[in-house]
Structures are given as C-alpha cells and as structure tokens.
C-alpha cells in the first residue's frame, strides 16, 4: 500500500477515557493524501470521539498525531484549523444567533483598515454558498434556516478552512439526495486537489459511492482498515456489528393498504405562514410517509399535527370524535407522540439522565402528583436501553454525554414509553447505525401491527417506501400529491417531487 510519508494525517495509539467509559482504546488511523476515508461503526463506537481527539476539541489520554509526517498536538480547535484541518462536527455546530456570513467567516473575516468589511464578507459568503446551489440571504440569522441549510453552511465553512484535511462527521444526516450529490461533487474536487477527507456516516450506499478506504471501530477499538472495493457490504456490516445482520432494510414492503378503518381524519388543517391547509386520513395500523424537499414544510406539518404550532384552520377527529390539538400537552392527552427532527434543540434534556429523559413524556402525561416510582423508571429505562440497544455506561449518565445516535434512540424510547396511538416521527433514523436502523424499522412494523398509527417523515426514500402504505409529497409548504399502493416507489416519489420542482422553476 502507500508508504508512510504519503499519509497526510496519521494517528497512533489514540486513547480516550471518560469517567465510566473507555471511548477509545489504542486506535490507529491513517489518512492518505487524495483519498476519501470512511470511518464507520455502530452508535457509540467512538467515531466522533476520535475526530474530536484529532482536532483538539478533546485532550486525548494517549497516542500521537502526525500531520505530514511531523508530530502535532493541537490544543484546541483553533490550532487545528490553523494546521489546515477543517471539521464538520456531528450536530450542527454553528451559532444560530449570527448571520450565515458571520458563521462562515468567524475568526477570519475580511478586513479593511483593520475593521471587518461586512460587504466583502457577505459577497464572499454568497460566492461560497453558490457552489452548493444555495442562494439564500447571507445577512439573515442562521436560525432562520432549516437544519439542512445549516448543515450545508457548516460544510461550506469546513471545506473553506481545510488546507490539508477535511473531516465530515455525519454531514449527510439531514441532507436530501440533491444536496448529497452536490456535496460529493465538491468532495471529489477536493480529493483531486490532494486533500485527505474523513467521512463518517451511517448510509452505506454513500460509503460505497464515495470512499476509497474504510476504517471500522467497535466499542472504542479498531476493527480494521480495508479498501472499499474489496469489502462487500455483508462483510462490512459484520465488521461493524461483530455479527451477521438478518433482514436489512428494504426487504419488507407494506404497499398493500391495511384493511383498517380510517381512524384519524384531518380536514383543512393548516396554519397561515406555516403550512397550507391540507386533508389527511390515517388508518389504524398504517404508516403514512411524508416526502419532500428541504423546507417543503414536512416538519411544519408534523408540528401542526402535534399542536406544537396551533392550527388556525380545519378540524381533526379520531373515530369521529373531535380532537383537541391545541398544544403538545393536549395532543399527548389524545395519545399522540412526536419525535422531533432537531434532537439537540427540541429533543434531549441534556443535563438529565437517560432514565429521566426516557420517563419524561410518560411522567408529564401522568401529571406531577402521580410520580413514576424510581423502580418503575428504572425498569422503563432498562427495558428501552435493551430494546433499542442504547449504548450508555449506565442509565444515570447525563444524556448529553451519549453519542448522537444513542441520543436519538433515547428520544424514541421516550415516546414509545407513552404507548401512543398516533406517533409522528420526524427523521427517526437520522444518525442511527445499520443494526439499530433495522431494529427500529422492525419496531415500527410491530407497533403498527399492535394498532398504532404512524406518520413518518424521512429523507431516505427507500426507508419510506419500505414501510409506508401511503406517501404524501410536499412542496412549498403545501401537500401536492399522495401516492398509494403500487405507486409507492422511490421512482414515483422522486418523480412527484421533481414534477413540482419543475413547476416551481418556471
């Protein structure tokens, strides 16, 4: 293979110990110039921790880092940036209170006469983002944009910062196929320029599409590094999980609409400025998928169904009985559940333990005067930690210390614990590893069989197709198409979105 000197970045024997958990155990990793190197592993395997050790966000407990053959020791991320390492950390790590342009150029703003030249900065920001087909107002606050846009901005910033190495920790988790394609185009271009690129993801198709080599971690240990071309998918999964995976996603197909009656009926449901009024019927035991481009109003549909935003028109009924969906609390009383898209802002209660995070919604529904006993909480937490395979050293660990995917599972557990009749999942499998992915989809199917109705929003069309009996397509904050039965295929969905796209373009 390559000689040692051709490695732009190599790490030898990296150790990282957290109280109660050994996150990295003598991990070796090397990144060649001009290669895309996928870093894979289950949730909690230590991928993000390795990245943070390499970029100085964490102090490692042992091991050496070599950049261009010379030993480096970045003390903080600023130093890593100066060394030419650009990083997109997991979760969007940008500042919502700054403008898009300020986020892009923080710490390296163009200056004139010693003062920041805002006009020049905005100009450059627009130029930078145009490479990603993003034509947005860069002087607006970042918080005005969806997670996906923020993700693109984060990527643009990191790419612009990276002189030698670009590290992408789950950059595609909230991106659509279109954005992913754009990203890959840029990655390939950087690769040609001789950059080393580390790419972390749970989407195996993307791994095979873009990466040259693969390194797999499991439980903080290095399993091995392989050439992508020489590693079949089955073997890769076995490497990651340490076992064979039975029944990966994409097998089961529930296109046949379930025979149940329409249970939930929404008529003219909508809210000015958020989502155009729409009609929606959901049967018992049915999964309705929602597809659309970024910003098409999927999340807004979910929020309005759950009462997080109050609908200002239309009616909702269950079995002919009117529903009160004026607030999340009211919705929960109607046995609704909602697993939000942005887990950091809307989902986790960072300082509370995994146990409390799982018990929270159930407890809130019971009211403060009827506390779940500690025993019950423990049982609940243990059950879901096992059922969803949440990797945590113990259930009392503050949830913010869990890996991203495991946080996602804990939020899902929170809602499953309430045993809802109507569950809305906004990007439920984002950042979840293959093993758990299969697990969750199995769970969804099981829940449906038990009579729960589900709305699932996902950018992964294959996943949507796999378990939805109907798929709604959104565009410009309006429901524009509904595919049912045999028409629920990726092709048809893409077509429906594209058709609307075409219309929007004219």
């Amino acid at each position, binding site marked *: 293979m390559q000689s040692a000197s051709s490695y732009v970045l190599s790490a030898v024997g990296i150790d990282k110990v957290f109280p109660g958990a050994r996150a990295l155990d003598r991990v070796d990793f090397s990144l060649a110039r001009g290669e895309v190197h996928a870093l894979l592993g289950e949730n909690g395997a230590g991928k993000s921790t390795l990245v943070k050790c390499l970029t100085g966000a964490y102090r490692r407990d042992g091991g050496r880092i070599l950049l261009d053959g010379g030993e480096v020791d970045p003390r*903080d991320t600023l130093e890593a940036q100066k060394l030419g390492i650009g990083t997109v950390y997991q979760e969007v790590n940008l500042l919502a209170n700054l403008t898009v342009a300020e986020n892009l150029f923080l*710490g390296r703003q163009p200056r004139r006469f010693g003062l920041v030249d805002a006009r020049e900065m905005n100009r450059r920001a627009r130029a930078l983002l145009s490479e990603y087909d993003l034509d947005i107002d860069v002087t*607006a606050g970042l918080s005005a944009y969806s997670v996906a846009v923020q993700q693109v901005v984060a990527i643009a910033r990191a790419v612009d910062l990276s002189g030698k190495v670009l590290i992408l920790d789950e950059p595609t988790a909230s991106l659509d196929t279109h954005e992913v394609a754009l990203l890959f185009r840029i990655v390939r271009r950087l690769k040609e320029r001789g950059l080393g690129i580390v790419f972390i993801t749970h989407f195996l198709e993307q791994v095979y599409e873009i990466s040259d080599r693969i390194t797999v971690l499991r439980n903080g240990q290095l399993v091995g590094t392989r050439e992508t071309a020489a590693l079949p998918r089955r073997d890769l999964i076995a490497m990651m999980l340490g076992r064979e995976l039975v029944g990966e996603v994409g097998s089961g197909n529930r296109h046949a609409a379930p025979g149940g009656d329409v249970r939930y009926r929404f008529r003219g449901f909508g809210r000015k400025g958020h989502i155009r009024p729409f009609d929606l019927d959901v049967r018992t035991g049915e999964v309705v998928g929602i597809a659309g481009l970024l910003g098409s109003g999927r999340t807004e549909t979910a929020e309005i169904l759950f009462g997080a935003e109050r609908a200002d028109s239309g009616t909702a009924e269950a079995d002919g009985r009117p529903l009160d969906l004026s607030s999340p609390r009211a919705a929960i009383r109607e046995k609704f559940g909602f697993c939000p898209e942005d887990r950091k802002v809307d989902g986790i209660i960072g300082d509370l333990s995994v146990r409390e995070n799982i018990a929270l919604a159930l407890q809130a529904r019971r009211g403060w005067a009827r506390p779940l006993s500690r025993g019950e909480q423990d049982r609940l937490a243990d059950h879901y930690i096992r059922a969803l395979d949440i990797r945590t050293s113990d259930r009392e660990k503050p949830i913010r210390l869990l890996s991203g995917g495991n946080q996602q599972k804990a939020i899902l557990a929170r809602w499953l614990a309430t045993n809802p009749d109507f569950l809305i999942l906004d990007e439920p499998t984002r950042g979840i590893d293959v093993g758990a992915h299969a697990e969750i989809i199995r769970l969804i199917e099981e829940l449906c069989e038990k009579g729960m109705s589900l709305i699932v929003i996902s950018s992964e069309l294959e996943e949507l197709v796999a378990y939805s009996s109907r798929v709604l397509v959104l565009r410009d904050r309006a429901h524009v198409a509904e595919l049912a039965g045999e028409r629920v295929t990726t092709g048809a969905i893409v077509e429906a979105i594209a058709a609307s796209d075409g219309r929007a373009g004219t």
Partner: protein
Amino acid sequence: MNARYLPLTATVAIFLAAYLVCVLQYPNMLSTRVIGNLLTDNAFLGIAAVGMTFVILSGGIDLSIGAVIAFTGVFLAVLLQATDIHPLAAFALALLVTTAFGALMGAIIHHLDMPPFIVTLAGMFLARGMAFVLSIDSIPVRHPFYATLKGLYYKLPGGGRITLIGGLMLVVFAAGILIAHRTRFGANVYALGGGAATAELMGVPIGRTTVAIYALSGFLAGLSGIVFSLYTSAGYSLAAVGVELDAIAAVVIGGTLLTGGSGFVAGTLVGILIQGLIQTYITFDGSLSSWWTKILIGLLLFIFILLQKGLIHVTERRRRHA
C-alpha cells in the same frame, strides 16, 4: 429591513413617542437644557452600560461596575489629595487598576469555570470594600485641572450644553458600536453569547475573549468612575450604589437579550435615554411622594418592555404573513 434590527427600531420608536408625550405635557422638556442634561447626567451610566452591553452580549453579567465606579472616585480623590500627581496620570493609573481588576474577574470566570454572576458579585463586595478601606469620608477634589475640564463644553442655543463628559459618552458609544460590529473581537463576543462550547469548536479563543470582555467592562467602569469623579468633583465610597442594575435595565430595554448573543450597543444608548426620560418626567411632575415615585418607575419600566414586546410581535406577525 432586516429582522435583526427589529428590537432596536422598536425601542427607538417607543422612545420618540414617549418623548413626544412628555413634551405635550411639559413643553419645557423640549428645551436644549433638558436634552443637554440628559446626556451629561447619564454620562457615567452610559459609559458603564457600554461595557455591560459587551458582557451581556457574551452571555455574562457584571455586577461590580457600581462598586468599581465608587472605588475609582475614591481612588482618584485620595490620590489627588495625598500626592501632587497630575490628574491625567491619576486617570491612567485608575484605568490600569480597574482594567486589571476586570481582567482578573474574567480570568477567574474562564479558568475556574465559575458563573459570572457570583464572581462579579464578589468583585462588587471587594471593590466597594477597597473604597471603604481607602476612605469612608467623602473627599472633595479641588484640583484646578478639574475646573478646566468642566469648563469645556459646547453651548447649544437655548442655554443647554453638551459637556465634556456628555460628549465622551457619545464617543464611547460610537467606539462601542464600532468594536461590536466591525472587529473580530466583537464577532467573537457575539459568538460566545451564542454558545461558548460551539464557539470553541468553531475556533473562537474563548479564554482570551472572556478575559478581554471583562477587562473592557472594567476599563469602562473605570472611565465611568473618572466621569463620575468629574461630575461630582469628589470621591465617595457609597456613590453609585445599584448602578449595575440601572445599566442592566438600560441594556435590556435597549433590546439586548440577557441570554447573550443578540443585541446592539446603540440600543443601550436608547435604553439610557429612556431611563433618563422617565426620571426627568417624574421630576417635572414633582407631585409624587417617594413611594409613588418608585411605583411609577417600575410601572413605566413595565410599560416600555410591554410596548417593545408588542411592537416586535405585531411586526413579526405582519412580516410572516406578508
């Protein structure tokens, strides 16, 4: 207009409306005298509030400024009384001390990872305690240079004056606006307020920035102390009690969020003027008892905040539906 300027615009609009109401009731309030007084009388508060704005923008708080103002006053008075040092040298010395004091608090906040509220509360005790130790008496300053400085003013038609200290406040505000919006340090302050951990991941030197922010606040509190010393020609250890709360109120009325990361230095100026206006109005009225004065101040504060909220809410709604 950009949505980010909404709170600022709302505040300015409310100030102008309130001023109009006052003038309709007391035409005298339009005199240049009142306007000049508004600047001169609030100069020390305004200067200190600029520092407070930076601190709050970064997500912190500085409770020590009132005590630092008092300390600076006593320090100058004692120094000028006991030695022959020129006031300008004394000013420089005082600024050095207060800046170092601020930097020390910043260093403690950052390196020991302690909440600013408590560190600066201890700083407040310490600064006032130091003032007491220097002297519990109020000490007049009789240096001729003070008289010279006070003689510098720009006379407005109608008897009003823009005094040196009033002008200085405007200069400090201008400088503050420049620093906040046109320097990398300013951007780092906003970044820190948006989230220290995220800012650190983005490569903001948070340690250096934190120390600099509190040093700046200390410097401006010291400058404010010098202004206060000029304003009263004296040093007094019980002076400027509770100024920090007035400053915080001005900053918040000016549209800055206490959670950090969002707001404007210019807004603080309007906040100061609004508070000054409330006070002037109450004095012009002159019929209120001590207790009704307090109640009215609270009430007017409440109304201003409410108006601001309402205005922002309505505009945002309209924007959304447009």
